[in-house]
């Protein structure tokens, strides 16, 4: 696994990434200007937000929506747009 600050003698050649599925370690939450906030009392667990989220950032537990992975959510607002009961509000960061 390449770490920040590694030198040219330590990293794979040609820009190759030799470990699969490591994108989840690249935290893209910092790109966000607005954050989705879910009102779990209003939420009906239809899972539309979960299905539409382009970054797989809607968190679930025991088949229920429990929150948002803010380390990876880029704040696109698709979830708030799709929510049929207006349970998701976009708040300024």
């Amino acid at each position, binding site marked *: 696994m*390449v770490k920040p600050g590694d030198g040219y003698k330590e*990293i794979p050649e040609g820009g190759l990434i030799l470990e699969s599925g490591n994108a989840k370690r690249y935290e893209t939450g910092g790109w966000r200007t607005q954050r989705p906030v879910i009102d779990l009392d209003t939420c009906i667990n239809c899972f539309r937000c979960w299905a539409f989220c382009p970054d797989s950032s809607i968190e679930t537990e025991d088949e229920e929506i429990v929150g948002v992975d803010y380390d990876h959510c880029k704040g696109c607002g698709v979830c708030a747009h799709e929510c049929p009961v207006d349970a998701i509000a976009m708040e300024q960061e």
Partner: protein
Amino acid sequence: MSEQVALTGNEVMSQAMRQINPDVVAAYPITPQTAIVQTFSQFVNDGDVDTEFVPTESEHSAMSATVGASASGARAMTATAANGLALMWEVLYIASGTRLPIVMPVVNRALSGPINIHCDHSDAMGARDSGWIQLYAENAQEAYDNAIQAVKISENKDVMLPTMVNMDGFIISHAVENLNLLADEDVQDFVGEYHAENPLLDSENPVTVGPLDLQDFYFEHKMQQAVAAENVKDVVLEVAEEYEELSGREYGLFEEYKLDDAEVAVVALGSTTGTAKTAVDNLRENGVKAGLSKIRLYRPFPAEEIAEALADLEAVAVMDRAETFSTTGGPVFADVRAALYDMGADVEAVNYIYGLGGRDLKVEEIESVYKDLEEIVETNTVEDRVQHLGVRE
């Protein structure tokens, strides 16, 4: 076992590709390279090779498909010339930056415009900073030998860089030459099987090829490329030694022709070096201590070795078959002069731009270059540092 044949440069290059038997060839035809791809596609059709042949809609696509094939773990080749090479431009850097050992014959031709199909080196010289290794040939035999050696040079673990195997358009590509082909099995044994270290199609060990590489690592990857380029010289010499055992033909970073005791010499690359050898022989008969340095490996540039070979001369003329419009001379001149400067050599160096757009350069014209050098030595004065040889006023 080798076989003596009479073939054109393009035919013999397609024979080299047949003997290498690459996994993938993706190519687009362009004069004067066309016969290579055309002949090779016939080999594919006739089942003489195991190659997957991809006819593409442009050279940009040809290089892109070759990059994809190479990244997947295949031994991949293509071939091009002139404007085709120019259209490959951005993908050339992706091939070298991704460290893919692609081998590509380039049949040197003038870049448009005005449009011209004949030989000069403006195509390959423009790509000299693209991170590709560049080999140049005096004749078809050398182009064939270079292509086979290039596979081993590029795929060496300390190198892993693509190679352009240059040969002069028409002068070499279309002229019939008497030459020796190695036996198919000898070439196969020599190049061996290619095993990519991290092939894209290895589903057991998934890898990502070509990801975004920003301020935090791009520089380190370029440094790795620079280190690989440093390694090329040694690998070229190792492979040449091994090839000599097989073929009996000797190769180095450059060839020294009657350079040992020379006072004046020409540095050149490509087919003109053959003409220059005749000029040297003629001048030697008249008592002129003339010599020639024929560059084979131009990228990376063997600066130290070339400067050392030229250091005892009185004056040297560097021949460039490409105009850079820098007003300070051609690319080979800039490299040779910088090498001499680093060596602290007391050698007067001048530059001749020649042969643009296929303009023929005759033996007498090269002899006149040596005469100019003798005059420089005699008068200790350089009137024109950069001259254009064989152009009409």
